């Protein structure tokens, strides 16, 4: 059983611990820098990247604007193609549905394709509680599962592990789960991949139930799409008799043609490839080819609440490419675990507090887990303005206000930790509205400037611990303006 994110400390605390780990920082720096350069090259190959990005954004927006319509259309298409559609309002309900579906097959083990949605709802843990063993088959997920670890990246959940650590985990843990690691396993990536192939093969060949997510669902045809590299996805999607796909309601695209945009932008953004090695599409069931039973579980779990936020809803355009993680200076240094969610990095910082609400310490701190440098927005293939949403969510945390939680309108109270900030802002507003008071204050500040401390006392201490206080000039600007007639009577002029 892998670790969970329940009860995570706030981002600053977790990040502080992470940056003190030199192995972690080395691993992250190496991996993110490798992929950054490659992504740039892959994107530069297509001259119409900007147009593809814009089209991707518009297609997703169009979907979200009429999501109810497309959900119903998708349901009809999937059912017409021989699939069964289930609706899950939250994680518990989705876990219950999947558990029952597996139990109905009489099986006690399932093979899984890497899926963010099933990570999000904690499906493996729920299945384990029901006596069903879920085998992760993506290499990185396998590393995380064997290492009793938590994922730290959307695309490469074991990005925080280097090859030496992976070798040690395989050698130590594989025998617990099935076929042991080969004798004398070294840390070359090819040998590690081979070890995973051997370990998982027996599981694929005997599997009766497969569980997946999906990258896209096409409303007008009922087609699901899984984009992958290793072939573990193909194994899980075609060898079992029963396939259960758990997919977020926002993963819809309206038409088959819309895939032409995302099948160009997703591989280049995520693994920096022209095309990923394998993409599987399926529409319901096909006679004598692949699973004879197909269940689609449509998952809300906070998505409709996110949709209710006019600024924040753009986060639902996300296609989980992870390009924003790879360019983020904060992610590169703090690593994925500090974000306390299966969605780390910049997209996680806007998605987790919206899906889960900002009540917990970690979720209230996530909108601040950014320097607002904007690199994430620049690389996003669906143009999510992550800095805009971060600032919006900071405002929500500080000021509170109306939000939708589980379909109900509620009013959030302002966060406690920001009382001093709010008091300072109120004082500033009062002062700026009164020119006389402002002038007196500015003059007093100028005259006493030699006495100013270098850092703030009391609650301001933490703020000034990492910042210089601005120097106060000898004469307030407005006094200077009046004295020199706007600089005209000053020697040397205003230039």
């Amino acid at each position: 059983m892998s670790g969970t994110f329940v009860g995570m400390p706030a981002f600053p605390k977790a990040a502080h611990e992470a940056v003190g780990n030199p192995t972690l920082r080395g691993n992250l720096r190496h991996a993110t820098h490798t992929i950054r350069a490659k992504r740039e090259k892959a994107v530069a190959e297509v001259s119409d990247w900007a147009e593809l990005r814009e089209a991707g954004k518009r297609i997703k927006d169009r979907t979200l604007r009429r999501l109810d319509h497309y959900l119903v259309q998708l349901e009809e298409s999937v059912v017409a193609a021989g699939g069964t559609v289930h609706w899950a309002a939250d994680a518990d309900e989705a876990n219950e549905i999947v558990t029952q579906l597996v139990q109905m097959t009489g099986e006690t083990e399932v093979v899984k394709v890497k899926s963010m949605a099933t990570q999000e709802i904690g499906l493996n843990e729920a299945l384990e509680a029901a006596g069903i063993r879920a085998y992760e088959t993506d290499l990185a997920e396998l590393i995380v599962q064997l290492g009793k670890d938590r994922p730290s990246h959307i695309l490469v959940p074991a990005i925080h592990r280097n090859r030496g650590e992976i070798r040690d985990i395989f050698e130590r843990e594989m025998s617990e789960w099935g076929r042991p690691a080969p004798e004398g396993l070294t840390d070359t990536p090819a040998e590690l991949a081979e070890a995973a192939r051997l370990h998982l093969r027996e599981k694929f060949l005997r599997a009766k139930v497969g569980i997946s997510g999906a990258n896209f669902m096409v409303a007008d045809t009922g087609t699901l799409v899984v984009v992958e590299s290793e072939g573990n996805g193909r194994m899980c999607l075609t060898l079992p008799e029963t396939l259960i796909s758990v997919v977020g309601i926002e993963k819809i695209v309206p038409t088959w043609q819309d895939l032409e945009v995302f099948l160009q932008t997703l591989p280049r953004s995520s693994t920096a490839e022209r095309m990923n090695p394998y993409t599987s599409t399926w529409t319901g069931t096909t006679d004598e080819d692949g699973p004879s039973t197909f269940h689609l579980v449509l998952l809300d779990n906070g998505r409709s609440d996110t949709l209710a936020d006019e600024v924040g809803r753009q986060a639902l355009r996300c296609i989980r490419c992870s390009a924003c993680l790879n360019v983020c200076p904060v992610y590169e240094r703090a690593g994925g675990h500090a974000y306390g969610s299966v969605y780390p990095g910049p997209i996680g910082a806007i998605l987790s507090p919206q899906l889960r609400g900002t009540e917990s310490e970690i979720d209230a701190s996530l909108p601040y887990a950014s320097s607002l440098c904007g690199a994430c927005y620049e690389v996003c293939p669906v143009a999510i303005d992550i800095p805009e949403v971060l600032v919006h969510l900071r405002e929500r945390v500080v000021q509170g206000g109306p939000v939708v939680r589980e379909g109900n309108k509620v009013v959030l109270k302002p966060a406690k930790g920001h009382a001093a900030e709010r008091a300072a802002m109120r004082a500033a507003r009062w002062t700026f509205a009164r020119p006389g008071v402002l002038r007196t204050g500015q003059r007093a500040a100028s005259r006493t400037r030699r006495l100013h401390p270098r850092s703030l006392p009391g609650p301001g201490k933490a703020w000034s611990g990492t910042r210089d206080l601005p120097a106060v000039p000898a004469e307030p600007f407005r006094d200077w303006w009046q004295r020199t007639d706007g600089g005209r009577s000053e020697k040397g002029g205003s230039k």
Partner: protein
Amino acid sequence: MSSRERILGRVRRALSDVSGEDAPIERTYLREHGDRTVEETVELLAENLADYRAIVHRCTTADLPATLAGMLAARGAKTVLVPPGLDPSWLTEAGADQVPDRAGSTPHELDRIDSVVTACAVAIAETGTIVLDGSPDQGRRRITLVPDHHICVVRVPDQVVSSVPQGLERLDPVRPLTWISGPSATSDIELDRVEGVHGPRTLEVVLVADQASAEVNS
């Protein structure tokens, strides 16, 4: 209230600020990248396939049986899986035992077969992708997955398109599709690509042309 109604209700309430008709999607992106002759497009396909570690062969229709036989012999394949609608002439010279795909064959049985030979539905030059759609000359999805060696025959230039949009246009969404770009690979160790995980570790693609265009290409 069912969860279906609950979710749809929440979605509708969430969208209460949204009004008006769907704006049409302006597709200002390119239908294909660059201006190429048919021969250049085939050349680009070969280049991109090779770039992602597929092994590319070229031959004429007349030479195809000998080419396939040579490839299977070089691999040392004793058994070769054959989809039901494969052109029977293709494997007339092959020494390997031909195993027809049966609906009842188990994954374990497929795992013991050395190679598989299929045709394809379409090939995309810009991305170095071959697409299988489960037609009788390509067979069920599992037969190109479990054996460790896949030989895919592409008829050029008929089956080759330049771009992803052109490829999608030719494909039927109702059929189960498998898009293949090189042998199986992973980027999961330090975000660096390594070939050879669960799918066939060797992918060989034969670009087969009739006599005339093969001469132009050579």
